[in-house]
Protein backbone atom coordinates (compact mmCIF):
# COMPACT_ATOMS: atom_id res chain seq x y z
CA UNK A 1 0.00 0.00 0.00
CA UNK A 2 1.79 3.12 -1.25
CA UNK A 3 -0.83 5.70 -0.40
CA UNK A 4 -0.94 5.56 3.40
CA UNK A 5 2.87 5.26 3.66
CA UNK A 6 3.54 8.38 1.61
CA UNK A 7 0.72 10.22 3.36
CA UNK A 8 2.00 9.37 6.84
CA UNK A 9 5.64 10.12 5.97
CA UNK A 10 4.73 13.30 4.14
CA UNK A 11 2.43 14.54 6.89
CA UNK A 12 5.09 13.77 9.50
CA UNK A 13 7.78 15.71 7.58
CA UNK A 14 5.46 18.66 6.94
CA UNK A 15 4.24 18.51 10.53
CA UNK A 16 7.78 18.81 11.92
CA UNK A 17 8.43 22.02 9.98
CA UNK A 18 4.96 23.44 10.61
CA UNK A 19 5.46 22.77 14.33
CA UNK A 20 8.91 24.42 14.25
CA UNK A 21 7.34 27.45 12.56
CA UNK A 22 4.54 27.63 15.15
CA UNK A 23 6.88 27.20 18.11
CA UNK A 24 9.17 29.92 16.71
CA UNK A 25 6.31 32.38 17.20
CA UNK A 26 6.68 32.10 20.97
CA UNK A 27 10.07 30.50 21.56
CA UNK A 28 13.38 29.90 19.79
CA UNK A 29 16.54 28.49 21.43
CA UNK A 30 18.22 31.87 20.94
CA UNK A 31 17.24 35.35 19.76
CA UNK A 32 17.53 35.44 15.93
CA UNK A 33 18.35 39.15 15.94
CA UNK A 34 21.09 38.82 18.57
CA UNK A 35 24.50 39.06 16.92
CA UNK A 36 27.51 37.51 18.67
CA UNK A 37 30.47 37.92 16.37
CA UNK A 38 32.77 36.16 18.86
CA UNK A 39 30.61 33.05 18.49
CA UNK A 40 30.54 33.09 14.69
CA UNK A 41 30.81 30.08 12.35
CA UNK A 42 30.68 27.43 15.10
CA UNK A 43 30.14 23.96 13.62
CA UNK A 44 27.07 21.99 14.77
CA UNK A 45 27.29 20.35 18.18
CA UNK A 46 29.69 22.84 19.75
CA UNK A 47 27.52 24.75 22.19
CA UNK A 48 24.77 25.52 19.68
CA UNK A 49 22.87 22.43 18.49
CA UNK A 50 23.18 23.21 14.77
CA UNK A 51 26.09 25.65 15.03
CA UNK A 52 26.13 29.40 14.41
CA UNK A 53 26.20 31.48 11.23
CA UNK A 54 28.61 34.15 9.99
CA UNK A 55 27.18 36.69 12.45
CA UNK A 56 27.09 34.31 15.40
CA UNK A 57 23.34 33.73 15.23
CA UNK A 58 22.04 30.34 16.36
CA UNK A 59 21.34 28.21 13.25
CA UNK A 60 18.56 26.15 14.87
CA UNK A 61 16.69 29.35 15.78
CA UNK A 62 17.29 30.82 12.32
CA UNK A 63 15.92 27.68 10.67
CA UNK A 64 12.82 27.71 12.86
CA UNK A 65 12.11 31.36 12.14
CA UNK A 66 12.89 30.73 8.44
CA UNK A 67 10.26 27.99 8.40
CA UNK A 68 7.77 30.57 9.63
CA UNK A 69 8.58 32.94 6.74
CA UNK A 70 8.51 30.22 4.07
CA UNK A 71 5.30 28.62 5.28
CA UNK A 72 3.51 31.93 5.84
CA UNK A 73 4.39 33.24 2.36
CA UNK A 74 3.45 29.99 0.59
CA UNK A 75 0.26 29.56 2.62
CA UNK A 76 -1.06 33.06 1.93
CA UNK A 77 -0.11 32.68 -1.75
CA UNK A 78 -2.19 29.48 -1.90
CA UNK A 79 -5.00 31.35 -0.14
CA UNK A 80 -4.92 34.06 -2.83
CA UNK A 81 -4.91 31.44 -5.58
CA UNK A 82 -7.83 29.54 -4.06
CA UNK A 83 -9.77 32.63 -3.01
CA UNK A 84 -9.80 34.06 -6.51
CA UNK A 85 -9.27 30.94 -8.66
CA UNK A 86 -11.99 28.70 -7.22
CA UNK A 87 -14.89 31.19 -7.65
CA UNK A 88 -13.66 32.01 -11.17
CA UNK A 89 -13.47 28.32 -12.05
CA UNK A 90 -16.96 27.70 -10.64
CA UNK A 91 -18.31 30.69 -12.57
CA UNK A 92 -16.73 29.46 -15.82
CA UNK A 93 -18.16 25.97 -15.27
CA UNK A 94 -21.63 27.35 -14.51
CA UNK A 95 -21.53 29.31 -17.81
CA UNK A 96 -19.80 26.45 -19.69
CA UNK A 97 -19.50 27.11 -23.39
CA UNK A 98 -20.59 30.71 -22.94
CA UNK A 99 -18.75 33.98 -23.34
CA UNK A 100 -17.72 34.19 -19.64
CA UNK A 101 -16.21 30.71 -19.84
CA UNK A 102 -14.32 31.52 -23.02
CA UNK A 103 -12.94 34.84 -21.76
CA UNK A 104 -11.90 33.37 -18.39
CA UNK A 105 -10.12 30.41 -19.96
CA UNK A 106 -8.32 32.54 -22.56
CA UNK A 107 -7.15 34.85 -19.77
CA UNK A 108 -5.95 31.73 -17.96
CA UNK A 109 -3.94 30.56 -20.96
CA UNK A 110 -2.42 34.00 -21.17
CA UNK A 111 -1.16 33.98 -17.58
CA UNK A 112 0.18 30.46 -18.12
CA UNK A 113 2.17 31.70 -21.10
CA UNK A 114 4.05 34.16 -18.88
CA UNK A 115 7.32 32.95 -17.43
CA UNK A 116 6.12 33.19 -13.83
CA UNK A 117 9.51 33.72 -12.26
CA UNK A 118 10.43 36.60 -14.56
CA UNK A 119 7.21 38.41 -13.75
CA UNK A 120 7.54 37.67 -10.04
CA UNK A 121 11.02 39.17 -10.11
CA UNK A 122 9.68 42.13 -12.08
CA UNK A 123 6.86 42.78 -9.60
CA UNK A 124 9.09 42.55 -6.54
CA UNK A 125 11.79 44.64 -8.24
CA UNK A 126 9.47 47.48 -9.23
CA UNK A 127 7.31 47.57 -6.12
CA UNK A 128 10.19 46.93 -3.75
CA UNK A 129 11.43 43.64 -2.31
CA UNK A 130 9.35 42.49 0.65
CA UNK A 131 7.59 39.40 1.91
CA UNK A 132 4.21 40.93 1.00
CA UNK A 133 5.20 41.55 -2.62
CA UNK A 134 6.65 38.03 -2.83
CA UNK A 135 3.30 36.68 -1.63
CA UNK A 136 1.44 38.72 -4.26
CA UNK A 137 3.82 37.69 -7.04
CA UNK A 138 3.49 33.99 -6.19
CA UNK A 139 -0.23 34.24 -5.42
CA UNK A 140 -1.16 35.77 -8.78
CA UNK A 141 0.25 32.76 -10.61
CA UNK A 142 -1.73 30.40 -8.37
CA UNK A 143 -5.04 31.89 -9.53
CA UNK A 144 -5.15 30.33 -13.04
CA UNK A 145 -4.02 26.97 -11.65
CA UNK A 146 -6.95 26.78 -9.26
CA UNK A 147 -9.36 28.25 -11.82
CA UNK A 148 -8.44 25.56 -14.33
CA UNK A 149 -8.59 22.64 -11.88
CA UNK A 150 -11.90 23.91 -10.44
CA UNK A 151 -13.47 24.37 -13.86
CA UNK A 152 -12.34 20.96 -15.11
CA UNK A 153 -13.63 19.10 -12.05
CA UNK A 154 -16.82 21.17 -11.82
CA UNK A 155 -17.71 20.39 -15.45
CA UNK A 156 -17.78 16.67 -14.63
CA UNK A 157 -19.97 17.24 -11.58
CA UNK A 158 -22.37 19.48 -13.57
CA UNK A 159 -23.28 16.51 -15.77
CA UNK A 160 -24.23 14.36 -12.76
CA UNK A 161 -27.85 13.42 -12.20
CA UNK A 162 -28.10 14.88 -8.73
CA UNK A 163 -27.35 18.28 -10.26
CA UNK A 164 -30.28 17.79 -12.59
CA UNK A 165 -32.38 16.99 -9.52
CA UNK A 166 -31.18 20.17 -7.83
CA UNK A 167 -32.08 22.19 -10.92
CA UNK A 168 -35.50 20.62 -10.99
CA UNK A 169 -35.88 21.63 -7.36
CA UNK A 170 -35.47 25.21 -8.58
CA UNK A 171 -31.97 25.97 -7.35
CA UNK A 172 -30.02 28.58 -9.29
CA UNK A 173 -26.51 28.16 -10.72
CA UNK A 174 -24.84 30.00 -7.83
CA UNK A 175 -26.58 27.93 -5.17
CA UNK A 176 -25.82 24.68 -7.01
CA UNK A 177 -22.16 25.70 -7.35
CA UNK A 178 -21.80 26.41 -3.66
CA UNK A 179 -23.99 23.66 -2.21
CA UNK A 180 -23.35 20.77 -4.59
CA UNK A 181 -20.36 21.38 -6.88
CA UNK A 182 -17.93 22.74 -4.30
CA UNK A 183 -18.25 19.90 -1.75
CA UNK A 184 -17.76 17.38 -4.55
CA UNK A 185 -14.54 18.91 -5.83
CA UNK A 186 -13.08 19.84 -2.45
CA UNK A 187 -10.83 16.74 -2.46
CA UNK A 188 -9.20 17.79 -5.65
CA UNK A 189 -8.69 21.33 -4.42
CA UNK A 190 -7.00 20.11 -1.26
CA UNK A 191 -4.60 18.01 -3.32
CA UNK A 192 -3.85 20.90 -5.69
CA UNK A 193 -3.46 23.11 -2.64
CA UNK A 194 -0.64 20.96 -1.24
CA UNK A 195 1.10 20.95 -4.65
CA UNK A 196 0.89 24.75 -4.96
CA UNK A 197 2.00 25.06 -1.35
CA UNK A 198 5.21 23.16 -2.09
CA UNK A 199 5.79 25.14 -5.30
CA UNK A 200 5.24 28.32 -3.28
CA UNK A 201 7.95 27.31 -0.80
CA UNK A 202 10.39 26.75 -3.69
CA UNK A 203 9.41 30.08 -5.28
CA UNK A 204 9.79 31.98 -2.01
CA UNK A 205 13.22 30.41 -1.51
CA UNK A 206 14.23 31.47 -5.04
CA UNK A 207 12.97 35.03 -4.62
CA UNK A 208 14.63 35.54 -1.25
CA UNK A 209 17.82 33.91 -2.58
CA UNK A 210 18.11 36.72 -5.14
CA UNK A 211 17.24 39.23 -2.43
CA UNK A 212 13.65 39.93 -3.48
CA UNK A 213 11.84 38.14 -0.64
CA UNK A 214 11.59 38.87 3.07
CA UNK A 215 14.12 41.52 4.07
CA UNK A 216 16.61 41.40 6.98
CA UNK A 217 16.38 40.89 9.88
CA UNK A 218 13.46 38.50 9.13
CA UNK A 219 15.20 35.12 8.62
CA UNK A 220 14.37 33.22 5.46
CA UNK A 221 15.83 30.00 4.07
CA UNK A 222 16.56 31.45 0.66
CA UNK A 223 18.51 34.39 1.99
CA UNK A 224 20.39 32.17 4.43
CA UNK A 225 21.56 30.21 1.38
CA UNK A 226 22.60 33.36 -0.46
CA UNK A 227 24.57 34.60 2.54
CA UNK A 228 26.16 31.19 3.06
CA UNK A 229 27.56 31.03 -0.46
CA UNK A 230 30.92 32.60 0.40
CA UNK A 231 31.34 30.41 3.50
CA UNK A 232 30.26 27.20 1.82
CA UNK A 233 33.70 25.61 1.65
CA UNK A 234 34.84 26.55 5.17
CA UNK A 235 31.49 26.16 6.99
CA UNK A 236 29.34 23.82 4.91
CA UNK A 237 26.59 23.61 7.56
CA UNK A 238 25.55 27.20 6.74
CA UNK A 239 24.48 26.19 3.23
CA UNK A 240 23.60 22.54 3.77
CA UNK A 241 21.08 23.03 6.60
CA UNK A 242 18.72 25.62 5.00
CA UNK A 243 18.88 23.66 1.73
CA UNK A 244 17.91 20.45 3.51
CA UNK A 245 15.09 22.29 5.27
CA UNK A 246 13.67 23.39 1.90
CA UNK A 247 14.08 19.94 0.34
CA UNK A 248 12.46 18.12 3.27
CA UNK A 249 9.51 20.52 3.51
CA UNK A 250 8.81 20.35 -0.22
CA UNK A 251 9.30 16.58 -0.23
CA UNK A 252 6.93 16.23 2.71
CA UNK A 253 4.25 18.35 1.05
CA UNK A 254 4.54 16.51 -2.26
CA UNK A 255 4.33 13.11 -0.58
CA UNK A 256 1.35 14.31 1.42
CA UNK A 257 -0.30 15.51 -1.79
CA UNK A 258 0.28 12.17 -3.53
CA UNK A 259 -0.98 10.25 -0.51
CA UNK A 260 -4.06 12.45 -0.14
CA UNK A 261 -4.87 12.05 -3.82
CA UNK A 262 -4.72 8.26 -3.60
CA UNK A 263 -6.65 8.21 -0.35
CA UNK A 264 -9.41 10.72 -1.06
CA UNK A 265 -10.55 9.57 -4.45
CA UNK A 266 -8.69 7.18 -6.70
CA UNK A 267 -11.06 7.99 -9.56
CA UNK A 268 -9.91 11.59 -9.59
CA UNK A 269 -6.23 10.71 -9.94
CA UNK A 270 -6.13 11.49 -13.62
CA UNK A 271 -7.85 14.83 -13.30
CA UNK A 272 -5.00 16.19 -11.20
CA UNK A 273 -2.00 17.29 -13.15
Amino acid sequence: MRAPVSLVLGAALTGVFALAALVSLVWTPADVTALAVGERLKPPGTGALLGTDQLGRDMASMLMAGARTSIAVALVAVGIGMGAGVPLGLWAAARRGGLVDEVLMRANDLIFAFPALVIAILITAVFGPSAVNAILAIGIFNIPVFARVTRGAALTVWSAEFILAARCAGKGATRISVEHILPNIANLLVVQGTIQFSLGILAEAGLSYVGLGAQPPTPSWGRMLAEAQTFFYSSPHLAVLPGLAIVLTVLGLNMMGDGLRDLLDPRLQRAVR
Partner: protein
Amino acid sequence: MHDGSPDAKGLARAAAFARLAAMARYLALRFLSLALSLAVASVVIFAVIQGVPGDPAAFMLGLNAAPDTVAALRSELGLEGGLAQRYIAWVGGMATGDFGISYTYRVPVADLVADRLAVSLPLAAYALLLSTALALPAGMLAAARRGGPVDWGIIAATQLGIAVPNFWFAMLLVVLFAITWPVFSAGGFPGWEAGLFAGLKALTLPAVALALPQAAILARVMRSALIETLHADYIRTARAKGLSEAAAIRRHAFRNALIPVLTILGLQFSFLLAGAIIIENVFFLPGLGRLIFQGITARDLIVVQSVTMLLVFAVILVTFLVDLAYAAVDPRLRKRG
Protein backbone atom coordinates in the same frame (compact mmCIF):
# COMPACT_ATOMS: atom_id res chain seq x y z
CA MET B 1 -16.19 5.78 -52.11
CA HIS B 2 -13.52 4.26 -54.28
CA ASP B 3 -15.64 3.01 -57.17
CA GLY B 4 -14.64 5.97 -59.31
CA SER B 5 -18.15 7.24 -60.03
CA PRO B 6 -18.35 11.03 -60.53
CA ASP B 7 -20.43 11.40 -57.35
CA ALA B 8 -17.83 9.70 -55.19
CA LYS B 9 -15.09 11.86 -56.67
CA GLY B 10 -17.07 14.94 -55.91
CA LEU B 11 -17.63 13.77 -52.35
CA ALA B 12 -13.94 13.07 -51.84
CA ARG B 13 -13.05 16.49 -53.21
CA ALA B 14 -15.59 18.13 -50.93
CA ALA B 15 -14.20 16.23 -47.94
CA ALA B 16 -10.64 17.28 -48.81
CA PHE B 17 -11.82 20.87 -49.14
CA ALA B 18 -13.58 20.70 -45.77
CA ARG B 19 -10.40 19.37 -44.16
CA LEU B 20 -8.40 22.21 -45.70
CA ALA B 21 -10.95 24.76 -44.51
CA ALA B 22 -10.85 23.31 -40.99
CA MET B 23 -7.06 23.50 -41.00
CA ALA B 24 -7.12 27.10 -42.25
CA ARG B 25 -9.65 28.02 -39.57
CA TYR B 26 -7.49 26.37 -36.92
CA LEU B 27 -4.39 28.24 -38.11
CA ALA B 28 -6.27 31.56 -38.21
CA LEU B 29 -7.56 31.04 -34.66
CA ARG B 30 -4.10 30.13 -33.36
CA PHE B 31 -2.56 33.18 -35.04
CA LEU B 32 -5.25 35.40 -33.59
CA SER B 33 -4.64 34.08 -30.08
CA LEU B 34 -0.87 34.45 -30.58
CA ALA B 35 -1.30 38.10 -31.57
CA LEU B 36 -3.71 38.72 -28.69
CA SER B 37 -1.33 37.10 -26.17
CA LEU B 38 1.55 39.25 -27.36
CA ALA B 39 -0.54 42.42 -27.25
CA VAL B 40 -1.78 41.77 -23.71
CA ALA B 41 1.70 40.72 -22.56
CA SER B 42 3.22 43.95 -23.87
CA VAL B 43 0.54 46.05 -22.17
CA VAL B 44 1.06 44.25 -18.85
CA ILE B 45 4.85 44.59 -18.96
CA PHE B 46 4.62 48.24 -20.00
CA ALA B 47 2.10 48.95 -17.24
CA VAL B 48 4.19 47.23 -14.54
CA ILE B 49 7.40 49.05 -15.49
CA GLN B 50 5.92 52.45 -16.28
CA GLY B 51 3.56 52.12 -13.36
CA VAL B 52 6.49 52.57 -10.98
CA PRO B 53 5.14 54.74 -8.21
CA GLY B 54 6.24 58.27 -9.09
CA ASP B 55 8.41 59.24 -12.03
CA PRO B 56 10.42 56.49 -13.82
CA ALA B 57 13.27 58.94 -14.40
CA ALA B 58 13.37 59.84 -10.71
CA PHE B 59 13.14 56.13 -9.85
CA MET B 60 16.13 55.37 -12.07
CA LEU B 61 18.30 58.16 -10.69
CA GLY B 62 17.54 57.51 -7.04
CA LEU B 63 16.62 59.85 -4.21
CA ASN B 64 19.45 62.36 -4.37
CA ALA B 65 19.13 63.30 -8.04
CA ALA B 66 19.07 66.97 -8.98
CA PRO B 67 15.79 68.10 -10.62
CA ASP B 68 17.51 69.15 -13.85
CA THR B 69 19.26 65.74 -14.15
CA VAL B 70 15.87 64.08 -13.80
CA ALA B 71 14.41 66.42 -16.44
CA ALA B 72 17.31 65.65 -18.80
CA LEU B 73 16.78 61.90 -18.37
CA ARG B 74 13.05 62.33 -18.88
CA SER B 75 13.60 63.83 -22.29
CA GLU B 76 16.31 61.27 -23.13
CA LEU B 77 13.94 58.42 -22.26
CA GLY B 78 11.14 60.00 -24.24
CA LEU B 79 9.00 60.24 -21.12
CA GLU B 80 7.41 63.51 -22.14
CA GLY B 81 4.60 62.03 -24.20
CA GLY B 82 1.44 60.49 -22.82
CA LEU B 83 1.33 56.82 -21.76
CA ALA B 84 -0.36 55.67 -24.97
CA GLN B 85 2.11 57.56 -27.14
CA ARG B 86 5.09 56.05 -25.28
CA TYR B 87 3.59 52.57 -25.49
CA ILE B 88 3.12 52.82 -29.24
CA ALA B 89 6.66 54.14 -29.68
CA TRP B 90 8.06 51.23 -27.64
CA VAL B 91 6.08 48.50 -29.42
CA GLY B 92 6.73 50.04 -32.80
CA GLY B 93 10.45 50.21 -32.01
CA MET B 94 10.57 46.58 -30.88
CA ALA B 95 8.79 45.45 -34.03
CA THR B 96 11.59 47.03 -36.09
CA GLY B 97 14.38 45.68 -33.87
CA ASP B 98 14.91 48.92 -31.93
CA PHE B 99 14.74 47.94 -28.25
CA GLY B 100 15.81 51.35 -26.96
CA ILE B 101 19.13 52.53 -25.53
CA SER B 102 20.36 51.15 -22.23
CA TYR B 103 20.72 53.91 -19.67
CA THR B 104 23.64 52.29 -17.80
CA TYR B 105 25.54 50.71 -20.72
CA ARG B 106 24.88 53.55 -23.18
CA VAL B 107 24.50 51.08 -26.04
CA PRO B 108 21.42 49.85 -27.89
CA VAL B 109 19.59 47.15 -25.89
CA ALA B 110 19.47 45.04 -29.07
CA ASP B 111 23.30 44.78 -29.02
CA LEU B 112 23.30 43.74 -25.35
CA VAL B 113 20.64 41.14 -26.06
CA ALA B 114 22.56 39.68 -29.00
CA ASP B 115 25.67 39.21 -26.79
CA ARG B 116 23.67 37.62 -23.98
CA LEU B 117 21.73 35.30 -26.28
CA ALA B 118 25.02 33.64 -27.21
CA VAL B 119 25.09 32.38 -23.61
CA SER B 120 21.41 31.92 -22.78
CA LEU B 121 20.33 29.95 -25.84
CA PRO B 122 23.17 27.39 -25.72
CA LEU B 123 22.58 27.04 -21.96
CA ALA B 124 18.85 26.36 -22.42
CA ALA B 125 19.53 23.94 -25.27
CA TYR B 126 22.25 22.15 -23.30
CA ALA B 127 19.94 21.81 -20.27
CA LEU B 128 17.04 20.61 -22.42
CA LEU B 129 19.30 18.03 -24.05
CA LEU B 130 20.60 16.76 -20.71
CA SER B 131 17.13 16.63 -19.20
CA THR B 132 15.65 14.74 -22.17
CA ALA B 133 18.57 12.33 -22.41
CA LEU B 134 18.22 11.51 -18.72
CA ALA B 135 14.43 11.57 -18.34
CA LEU B 136 13.13 9.63 -21.34
CA PRO B 137 15.14 6.43 -20.71
CA ALA B 138 14.46 6.67 -16.96
CA GLY B 139 10.71 7.11 -17.53
CA MET B 140 10.61 4.23 -20.03
CA LEU B 141 12.57 1.95 -17.70
CA ALA B 142 10.24 2.76 -14.79
CA ALA B 143 7.16 2.10 -16.94
CA ALA B 144 8.56 -1.21 -18.22
CA ARG B 145 9.34 -2.33 -14.65
CA ARG B 146 6.25 -0.72 -13.10
CA GLY B 147 5.58 -1.82 -9.54
CA GLY B 148 9.08 -3.27 -9.11
CA PRO B 149 12.07 -2.00 -7.13
CA VAL B 150 13.58 -0.23 -10.18
CA ASP B 151 10.32 1.69 -10.66
CA TRP B 152 10.20 2.54 -6.97
CA GLY B 153 13.79 3.78 -7.04
CA ILE B 154 13.17 5.99 -10.07
CA ILE B 155 10.00 7.43 -8.50
CA ALA B 156 11.89 8.20 -5.29
CA ALA B 157 14.68 9.87 -7.28
CA THR B 158 12.18 12.03 -9.19
CA GLN B 159 10.44 13.05 -5.94
CA LEU B 160 13.79 14.23 -4.65
CA GLY B 161 14.64 15.94 -7.94
CA ILE B 162 11.43 17.98 -7.82
CA ALA B 163 11.99 19.02 -4.20
CA VAL B 164 15.56 20.28 -4.62
CA PRO B 165 15.82 24.04 -5.33
CA ASN B 166 18.04 24.27 -8.41
CA PHE B 167 20.18 27.13 -7.05
CA TRP B 168 21.01 25.05 -3.97
CA PHE B 169 21.84 22.06 -6.17
CA ALA B 170 24.04 24.45 -8.17
CA MET B 171 25.91 25.46 -5.00
CA LEU B 172 26.51 21.79 -4.13
CA LEU B 173 27.74 21.12 -7.68
CA VAL B 174 30.20 24.02 -7.44
CA VAL B 175 31.64 22.76 -4.16
CA LEU B 176 31.93 19.19 -5.46
CA PHE B 177 32.99 19.61 -9.09
CA ALA B 178 34.67 23.00 -9.16
CA ILE B 179 36.39 23.22 -5.76
CA THR B 180 36.86 19.73 -4.33
CA TRP B 181 37.50 18.12 -7.73
CA PRO B 182 38.18 21.06 -10.07
CA VAL B 183 36.81 19.49 -13.24
CA PHE B 184 34.48 22.33 -14.28
CA SER B 185 34.61 26.07 -13.73
CA ALA B 186 32.84 27.55 -10.70
CA GLY B 187 31.46 30.54 -12.56
CA GLY B 188 31.95 33.13 -15.26
CA PHE B 189 32.05 32.58 -18.98
CA PRO B 190 35.19 32.84 -21.14
CA GLY B 191 33.22 33.59 -24.31
CA TRP B 192 32.96 31.35 -27.34
CA GLU B 193 36.19 32.89 -28.69
CA ALA B 194 38.00 30.78 -26.07
CA GLY B 195 36.87 27.69 -27.95
CA LEU B 196 33.95 25.30 -27.85
CA PHE B 197 35.48 23.18 -25.11
CA ALA B 198 36.09 26.08 -22.73
CA GLY B 199 32.56 27.35 -23.35
CA LEU B 200 30.99 23.96 -22.67
CA LYS B 201 33.13 23.55 -19.56
CA ALA B 202 31.68 26.79 -18.18
CA LEU B 203 28.11 25.87 -19.10
CA THR B 204 28.10 22.25 -17.87
CA LEU B 205 27.41 22.79 -14.15
CA PRO B 206 24.70 25.43 -14.78
CA ALA B 207 23.09 23.16 -17.37
CA VAL B 208 23.09 20.20 -14.97
CA ALA B 209 21.59 22.36 -12.20
CA LEU B 210 18.88 23.62 -14.56
CA ALA B 211 18.20 20.19 -16.02
CA LEU B 212 17.76 18.18 -12.81
CA PRO B 213 14.30 19.35 -11.68
CA GLN B 214 13.12 19.39 -15.29
CA ALA B 215 14.35 15.84 -15.83
CA ALA B 216 12.50 14.69 -12.71
CA ILE B 217 9.20 16.13 -13.97
CA LEU B 218 9.76 14.83 -17.50
CA ALA B 219 10.60 11.31 -16.30
CA ARG B 220 7.35 11.18 -14.31
CA VAL B 221 5.31 12.36 -17.30
CA MET B 222 7.07 9.85 -19.57
CA ARG B 223 6.38 7.05 -17.09
CA SER B 224 2.70 7.76 -16.58
CA ALA B 225 2.03 8.45 -20.27
CA LEU B 226 3.72 5.19 -21.21
CA ILE B 227 1.83 3.19 -18.56
CA GLU B 228 -1.41 4.68 -19.86
CA THR B 229 -0.71 3.71 -23.47
CA LEU B 230 0.41 0.24 -22.38
CA HIS B 231 -3.20 -0.42 -21.34
CA ALA B 232 -4.46 0.40 -24.84
CA ASP B 233 -5.98 -2.27 -27.08
CA TYR B 234 -3.38 -1.94 -29.81
CA ILE B 235 -0.65 -2.85 -27.32
CA ARG B 236 -2.58 -6.00 -26.39
CA THR B 237 -2.76 -6.76 -30.10
CA ALA B 238 0.97 -6.16 -30.46
CA ARG B 239 1.68 -8.57 -27.63
CA ALA B 240 -0.82 -11.08 -29.00
CA LYS B 241 0.99 -11.17 -32.31
CA GLY B 242 4.09 -12.19 -30.40
CA LEU B 243 6.02 -8.94 -29.87
CA SER B 244 8.11 -8.85 -26.72
CA GLU B 245 7.30 -6.25 -24.04
CA ALA B 246 10.36 -4.22 -25.03
CA ALA B 247 9.42 -4.29 -28.72
CA ALA B 248 5.82 -3.33 -27.92
CA ILE B 249 7.03 -0.34 -25.95
CA ARG B 250 9.60 0.70 -28.53
CA ARG B 251 7.46 0.35 -31.62
CA HIS B 252 3.98 1.28 -30.46
CA ALA B 253 3.61 2.68 -26.96
CA PHE B 254 6.54 5.12 -27.08
CA ARG B 255 5.25 7.10 -30.06
CA ASN B 256 1.80 7.48 -28.60
CA ALA B 257 3.18 8.52 -25.24
CA LEU B 258 5.17 11.30 -26.90
CA ILE B 259 2.31 13.81 -27.06
CA PRO B 260 2.10 14.57 -23.33
CA VAL B 261 5.90 14.45 -23.23
CA LEU B 262 6.10 17.10 -25.98
CA THR B 263 3.64 19.29 -24.06
CA ILE B 264 5.87 19.25 -21.02
CA LEU B 265 8.99 19.85 -23.13
CA GLY B 266 7.34 22.95 -24.59
CA LEU B 267 6.45 24.23 -21.12
CA GLN B 268 9.93 23.44 -19.86
CA PHE B 269 11.56 25.65 -22.44
CA SER B 270 9.78 28.54 -20.78
CA PHE B 271 11.12 27.42 -17.44
CA LEU B 272 14.65 27.00 -18.74
CA LEU B 273 14.66 30.59 -20.00
CA ALA B 274 13.07 32.04 -16.89
CA GLY B 275 14.69 29.71 -14.35
CA ALA B 276 18.05 30.65 -15.79
CA ILE B 277 17.69 34.08 -14.12
CA ILE B 278 18.62 32.56 -10.78
CA ILE B 279 21.11 29.99 -12.08
CA GLU B 280 22.91 32.60 -14.19
CA ASN B 281 23.30 34.62 -11.00
CA VAL B 282 24.77 31.66 -9.11
CA PHE B 283 27.39 31.10 -11.82
CA PHE B 284 27.88 34.75 -12.86
CA LEU B 285 26.99 33.85 -16.44
CA PRO B 286 26.47 36.85 -18.75
CA GLY B 287 23.08 35.66 -20.05
CA LEU B 288 19.68 37.27 -20.58
CA GLY B 289 18.50 36.46 -17.07
CA ARG B 290 21.49 38.17 -15.53
CA LEU B 291 20.94 41.12 -17.86
CA ILE B 292 17.40 41.54 -16.49
CA PHE B 293 18.67 41.25 -12.98
CA GLN B 294 21.47 43.75 -13.52
CA GLY B 295 18.92 46.02 -15.14
CA ILE B 296 16.74 45.76 -12.05
CA THR B 297 19.57 46.54 -9.62
CA ALA B 298 20.85 49.40 -11.82
CA ARG B 299 17.26 50.63 -12.27
CA ASP B 300 17.80 50.46 -16.02
CA LEU B 301 14.10 50.25 -16.84
CA ILE B 302 14.48 50.14 -20.63
CA VAL B 303 16.67 47.05 -20.43
CA VAL B 304 14.28 45.33 -18.00
CA GLN B 305 11.20 46.20 -20.05
CA SER B 306 12.57 45.13 -23.43
CA VAL B 307 14.37 41.98 -22.26
CA THR B 308 11.32 40.81 -20.28
CA MET B 309 9.15 41.34 -23.34
CA LEU B 310 11.65 39.39 -25.42
CA LEU B 311 11.58 36.45 -22.98
CA VAL B 312 7.79 36.45 -22.88
CA PHE B 313 7.73 36.64 -26.68
CA ALA B 314 10.04 33.63 -26.92
CA VAL B 315 7.90 31.63 -24.51
CA ILE B 316 4.60 32.48 -26.23
CA LEU B 317 6.13 31.72 -29.63
CA VAL B 318 7.42 28.32 -28.49
CA THR B 319 4.01 27.44 -27.03
CA PHE B 320 2.44 28.43 -30.36
CA LEU B 321 4.90 26.31 -32.36
CA VAL B 322 4.36 23.33 -30.07
CA ASP B 323 0.60 23.71 -30.59
CA LEU B 324 1.10 23.67 -34.36
CA ALA B 325 3.38 20.64 -34.08
CA TYR B 326 0.64 18.71 -32.27
CA ALA B 327 -1.93 19.60 -34.86
CA ALA B 328 0.44 18.23 -37.50
CA VAL B 329 1.11 15.07 -35.48
CA ASP B 330 -2.38 14.40 -34.16
CA PRO B 331 -5.34 15.61 -36.26
CA ARG B 332 -7.73 14.96 -33.36
CA LEU B 333 -6.24 17.92 -31.47
CA ARG B 334 -7.13 20.41 -34.20
CA LYS B 335 -10.77 20.30 -33.19
CA ARG B 336 -10.02 21.74 -29.77
CA GLY B 337 -9.00 25.04 -31.32
